[in-house]
């Protein structure tokens, strides 16, 4: 999508203190064809000692690290290599003023841990050539749900929104295929069960992914399972 004019691969370095989160995030990110992992670290000083050697082009770094704060490490890394693209991961959503400070120090995008992983992917893609990227749509939620002084404090209570409507925007046949796919049933078996050709199912599959805005099957499976889970929850309430 963003890679139209043969931009070089993203050489990714990730600095997060907790191994589990780092692994989960990396598994999600390196599934993209144009991202290569070149290094990772749990500490700020560790990051600084490896960045240059590994010729990283993009650094995802957590703000709260044990040894130094992520912002300081980012500034330091930029002093050494102004071409480095840095995406800062913050614990909670930041205000616009705070965002301005981060961007002013040369960070290209700020993503909060309360956002979903697609937002992070998008930030990485848009910043790959050194552009600043602000996920402005992200700021809509705040305004709707808050008043006066506590402008950015309502974030934590905000339930993760699941776009059920998106599912119902699929045609009936597509919904049916999506349900099969969520159960990891192969294209061939789905075709057999529905009595159509493999090619038709492939076409459905592509259309479903495009309509829902996903690139890969695992994302669809997660979406479908969440839909089903929510559905079960809703009907138990009735």
């Amino acid at each position, binding site marked *: 999508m963003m890679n*139209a*004019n043969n931009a*070089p691969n993203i050489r990714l370095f990730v600095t997060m203190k907790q191994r589990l989160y780092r692994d989960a995030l990396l598994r999600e990110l390196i599934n993209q064809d144009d991202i290569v992992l070149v290094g990772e670290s749990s*500490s700020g*000083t*560790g990051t*600084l*000692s490896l960045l240059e050697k590994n010729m990283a082009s993009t650094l995802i770094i957590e703000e709260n690290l*044990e*040894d*130094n*704060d992520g*912002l*300081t*490490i980012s*500034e*330091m890394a930029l*002093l050494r290599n*102004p*071409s480095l693209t840095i995406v800062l991961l913050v614990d909670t959503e930041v205000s*616009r*003023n705070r*965002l*301005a*400070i981060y*961007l*002013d*120090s*040369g960070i290209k995008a700020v993503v909060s841990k309360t956002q979903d992983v697609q937002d992070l992917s*998008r930030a990485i893609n*848009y910043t790959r*050539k*050194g*552009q*600043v*990227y*602000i*996920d*402005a*749509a992200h*700021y*809509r939620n705040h*305004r709707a749900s808050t*008043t*006066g002084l506590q402008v950015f404090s309502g974030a934590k209570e905000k339930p993760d929104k699941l776009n059920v409507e998106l599912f119902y925007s699929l045609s009936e046949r597509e919904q049916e295929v999506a349900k099969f796919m969520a159960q990891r049933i192969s294209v061939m078996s789905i075709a057999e069960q529905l009595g159509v050709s493999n090619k038709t199912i492939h076409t459905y599959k592509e259309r479903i992914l495009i309509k829902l805005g996903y690139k890969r099957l695992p994302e669809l499976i997660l979406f479908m399972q969440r839909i089903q889970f929510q559905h079960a929850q809703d009907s138990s309430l009735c």
Partner: protein
Amino acid sequence: MNTKNDLPLVLYRFDQSDTKDDFVRSFQEDFELVLCESDDYALQYLENAERQISAVVAQQDVVQQDAVHSVLFEQSKKTYPQALRILVQQNISLTTVVSLLEQGVIDKCFSLPFDDHVIRSEIYATFIGVHSRVQLSSQAEGLAARFYALIVDDEPSATKYLKKQLEVLKCPCDILVANNADSALKLFRQHHSAIAIVISDQRMPGMLGTQLLTEIRNHNTNIIRILTSAYDEVDVALNAVNEGQIYRYIRKPWDAQEMYDCMVSALAEFKLQRSHTDEQQAFLLTAFNQLIAAREVALTERLGYVVDSYAGEGSLLYFFDSLRAIETLAPTKSSLALSQKGALEEELVSVFVKAVLEKITSLSAQTELFRGKDIEGAQWLTGVEWQSLFALISQLTQDSETDLMEDTVLELLHPAASVMLISLQKLLASSNLDFSVMEFKHYGGIYKLSTKPGQDISLYKHMLSAHTRLPRQLVEQQSAMLMLVLAVRHLGCGIDIRGGAQAFSLSLSFSGGASVNDER
């Protein structure tokens, strides 16, 4: 609630109502939109707008002979120079892009269908003021008397000829020539502060022209970037404008006169931007120095007496002098603005003071207990105590397995000596180091504990540098550093902190060791 004021104000000029509807649907939640169907109405609005306009967007569906709403853009450039000027057009032609650049009235230019994420991001960035980033450069760059223009093209004969022609025309810059991006970057590093203009061909083996220009922009946004190409690639030109913020797009084959004219205006633009940056930097520096001076006064008022009475006159000043010699990260506009608003500055001082006072109070109390109040020269260690301190230090430096906090000797030491070691360990740990980077030597009756050559302790920010927030790590690290100075001076030992770039070397000398030898 004036939530509307909270949104970027965007003036949107359209000529067909169904495209307007699409636009409104995409952005109504993000911006306060002013919809204008005619230039007249838009111009009128510009005159009377009640607050800062963040962007002027003109979407043209009916295009007559590459004409654009330049009147509107020109007027908005005059009235709201900060506002982002965006043109959206179906099937933009290269001629349009080239002429828009020449007029210098448009910042971004999108072909339909546009990517709404990008437009949203650009307008937001302008809204919160990101595009005017100024940072103090750590090295002072003298203004060169004469500037260079760097021409990059993989056809040596073409560049050679152009260079000659430009010289005949008495081009205001000296010309440097490179045959590919790699050698261009090499030249760029060599002549960094004297290069004003970079002119690069798009299609070269290896790095593309747009990539080279981006790389150069990352290092210095002031340098004027010009892209040339023999091919009509609208997408390349659009991306170069939108992402690389190029100054001109020049079609090949080059015309020497056109190139000359372009370079004259580019150099003028460079000098203008440069003097603007210099001015802002000078302003930033003055304001920053005042801020730091005030911070030092505030800290001295609240800590000076306590520190100096435990560690001897001038101890706090020594701490500050040591910090001053360590070059830390330069302040940015926002760090300054934040400090000047006061809250952060006050917090910085009070949190640090509180942390230090707690530590000194406890150390003083322990010191009194250790010797009892009335003994003359209570702070000095006896020969045996020096011995055990030295033994512990040499164990620490030789065996990285030694855990200082587990060591029972620590409890038997003079409190100042143990605070010295604990603080030192904290300092080392904050740059991921331990005692193994230090060497403990004994010569001429003096024991010295120093960082090994090339093993400096990192320090990116300290109490006399710029901050945008107050991380816990900073307070811990800086109070450990002050406690180290304090403890060492209390014990009557020497401390030498040599500042470098974001790091320092450290040397502690114990002449107390001499008396141990004498006694033997």
